């Protein structure tokens, strides 16, 4: 069995993957529209790994500066080019696709690629949410090599990378996108679906769809508590954004913009502070850390209930701050060290919601 997606589900799916983005993962709107156009009146099935035995799946997605996607639009052939390159290098035909990252726009890209290439999509991904670095792919954490893999960028250039660890791949990808179009499609080596799914987060897109549907089902005037309950999360506060501070920190090779958002709860006057990089990483209420990665922190516009991304939040916004449970896959201590707050340079023990 799988989850069937039709045109009328797309709105919910887009909101769902945005929520899984925890404030990051790039703008889903453009890919949402692209997907709507590709899908038309047809339907797309998100398959369980168990339903497609024997398929060689390639995890696929967009890497690089997702904000550049708005300016440098996809040409259409990037997915095909990457998949063909990795097939050719490995000598294994790609017969299925899965997502690199379920949160944000990469929750949608494999669906577009699947429609373009006519391949089945397995509902599994390597993050279960949005995370910024390639060494945070579940494959890398589980000890599976990320290479060989192929990158293709909008003007047609393709490179294949092999025999390098996750950090080396990260460097290679960054220098490639920095010197080309700012972003590229990354396709990992085709892998038997049983092995691929064993070291991946399963069912994220189905979860995204469920989240999106719950979100769509909310009344326009729903109270914050109702919103939190409907989405299965915890309400941290409701109020005005008092300050958004952003500063770049040079952190070895990868420099992400570190920042913080300060919100004062309208009712209790509690001070909520959220530390950010590409995603919302850590929330403190009155100075006490309450939720950290890998759980999801979502900031919603109080009026429209639409998620607000890290790079879009502004002082004066009236918002809800919600925490949703992160993917269960990460909740093992040995995995947690790769995605917990320490992995982002925040000296704080992981604070996770009670597993629901």
């Amino acid at each position, binding site marked *: 069995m799988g989850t069937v997606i039709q045109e009328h589900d797309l709105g919910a799916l887009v909101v769902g993957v945005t929520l899984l983005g925890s404030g990051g993962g790039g703008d889903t709107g453009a890919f949402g529209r692209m997907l709507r156009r590709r899908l038309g009146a047809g339907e797309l099935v998100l398959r369980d790994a168990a339903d497609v035995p024997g398929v060689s799946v390639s995890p696929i997605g967009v890497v690089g500066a997702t904000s550049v996607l708005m300016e440098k639009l996809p040409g259409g052939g990037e997915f095909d080019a990457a998949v063909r390159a990795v097939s050719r290098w490995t000598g294994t035909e790609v017969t299925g696709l899965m997502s690199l990252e379920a949160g944000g726009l990469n929750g949608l890209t494999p669906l577009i690629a699947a429609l373009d290439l006519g391949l089945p999509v397995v509902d599994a991904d390597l993050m279960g949410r949005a995370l910024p670095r390639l060494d945070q792919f579940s494959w890398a954490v589980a000890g599976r090599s990320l290479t060989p893999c192929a990158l293709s960028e909008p003007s047609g250039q393709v490179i294949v990378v092999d025999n390098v660890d996750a950090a080396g791949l990260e460097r290679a990808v960054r220098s490639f996108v920095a010197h080309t179009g700012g972003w590229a499609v990354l396709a990992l080596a085709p892998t038997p679906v049983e092995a691929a799914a064993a070291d991946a987060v399963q069912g994220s897109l189905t979860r995204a769809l469920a989240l999106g549907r719950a979100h769509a089902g909310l009344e326009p005037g729903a109270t914050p508590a109702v919103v939190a309950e409907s989405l299965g999360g915890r309400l941290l506060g409701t109020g005005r954004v*008092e*300050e958004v*501070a952003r*500063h770049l920190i040079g952190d070895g090779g990868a420099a992400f913009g570190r920042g*913080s958002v*300060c919100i*004062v709860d309208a009712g209790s*006057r*509690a*001070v909520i*502070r959220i*530390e950010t990089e590409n995603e919302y990483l*850590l929330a*403190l209420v*009155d*100075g*006490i*850390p309450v939720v950290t990665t890998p759980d999801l922190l979502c900031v919603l516009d109080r009026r429209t209930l639409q998620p607000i991304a890290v790079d879009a939040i502004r002082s004066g916004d009236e918002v809800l701050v919600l925490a949703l449970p992160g993917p269960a896959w990460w909740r093992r201590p040995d995995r947690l060290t790769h995605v917990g707050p320490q992995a982002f340079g*925040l*000296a*704080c023990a992981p604070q996770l919601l009670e597993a629901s």
Partner: protein
Amino acid sequence: MRDLAPSLAAMLSSPGWTNVVVLGAAADDGPRLTGSRVLLEVSSHPESLDGQLLVVLLADDHTDWRIDALISRASAAGAGALLLAGVEPLGRGAQLLAERLQLPVLGCSDPLAAHEYLRRVTAEPEVVRSDLVLRAVAALRRAGGDLTSVLRTTSDVLERPVTLAGADGGTLAGEPLEAGERTALVAELPRVPVAWAAPYRVDLPSGAVMVAVAVVGVGPVCWLVARLPGVVPAEVAAVPDVLSVVAPAVGERLALRRLELERDARQRTSLLGELLHGEPSEATRRRAVDLGWQLDGWHTGIRIGAEGQVDVAGRRADVVEAFDAEGLRAVVVEQGDGWSGWITAVREPTATEVQQQAAVIRRVHRRLVQTVDAYVGVGRVQPGPSGIATTLAEAGDAAGLARGRAETGRFLHVDRLGLAQLLLAWTRTDTFQPAAQALLAPIKDQPGDLVTTLAVYLDTESSLAETAAVLGIHRNTAAARITKIQHLLGVDLTNPDERLALHLAARTTPTE
């Protein structure tokens, strides 16, 4: 220990914390800080603090989320306040949080020094005290000779303003007191202090404290006052000791100053005495030049008398100042219970100029009256060195008359003396003087100073008791003398005509 705990506001205005700034959540007075505890860095966890200041030695980034977390932990641990290394502003979130938890957050470029100071004033008040006293003693040894330098040295040691105030709170040296402080101080201090009295502490409504120690020495009592903008108990306890050490030094400086003043006064008075004695000698002229007196030219004498006990030498500066303020360059000399002075012009002034000058001297008088119960007489313009004596004599007469004349504002100018002056002038004429002397000749060389006794007796409206009191003799002695005078002169003092003649004669005859 709690009674040694200063409020945050007092600490912020204390000398050891001059470089501490408030970064967030400053209340009016702030909490009382019971002590100080050090934490190495922001991620450390404080133990129970019970109102102590938590000092964090390493805090590079004041916008870091760990500052927020630390504020929360410090508040939970019961910290009185939090002090971070560095003075960069806090992030908005930390500020809001500090306000919410009412935990003042401070910044300081040298957190260890701030910690050390707070620890000392809360835990080792006697060290603070002995340190200040020793430093004051050492600094006084190096201080310059004058009063200002002693006060400045003390002020430097205490790092607080120090003032020498008079009994009325007026500033004699150092930084002037504000009006409110002055009133509060005068209300608290006794009129007549005793040397061994404990230092006085005056608490102002603003929360500031003044500590006053009496400086008892020559001249009127004055007070050495230190002002502390807030109560740091250890400091408030130490300052009186420091002031008590300094007070004798101040007294000594005051005595030296007084000595100089008296010496100068004596010099001037003796020179004036010589001038009044007739044509000045060569030596006298030289000394006059040394003092800047111009003997030639046209002089206008001025006599300023003062009622009551007035420190004539000490207040001379006020008189000179009053003349200066009105643009008159007058020589002022202490003489008796007042001052004699004169103004010298190169050429003879016209009548109008004389009138104008008199008007200006009247203004000088009005200025003086604000602080001294003074009466003033002004003589006529007289030329040459001997003119000084003449015009001063006139001024003296005028002053004598002015004293009893409230209707002229206790100011008389000889040109306007009218009848009274004519009468007095007449007694100085060549016809009256010999007659007067002849009249009194029988009692002149008798034992018991009969001339003076007679003059006093008549001045006191023939009261024996009063006469005895003025002369300091027994009533019976006075009665015996009067009887003797009547006998020797062969007069009846109850006869009005005879009494008038004798009264005038007694007035005009100089007594030895």
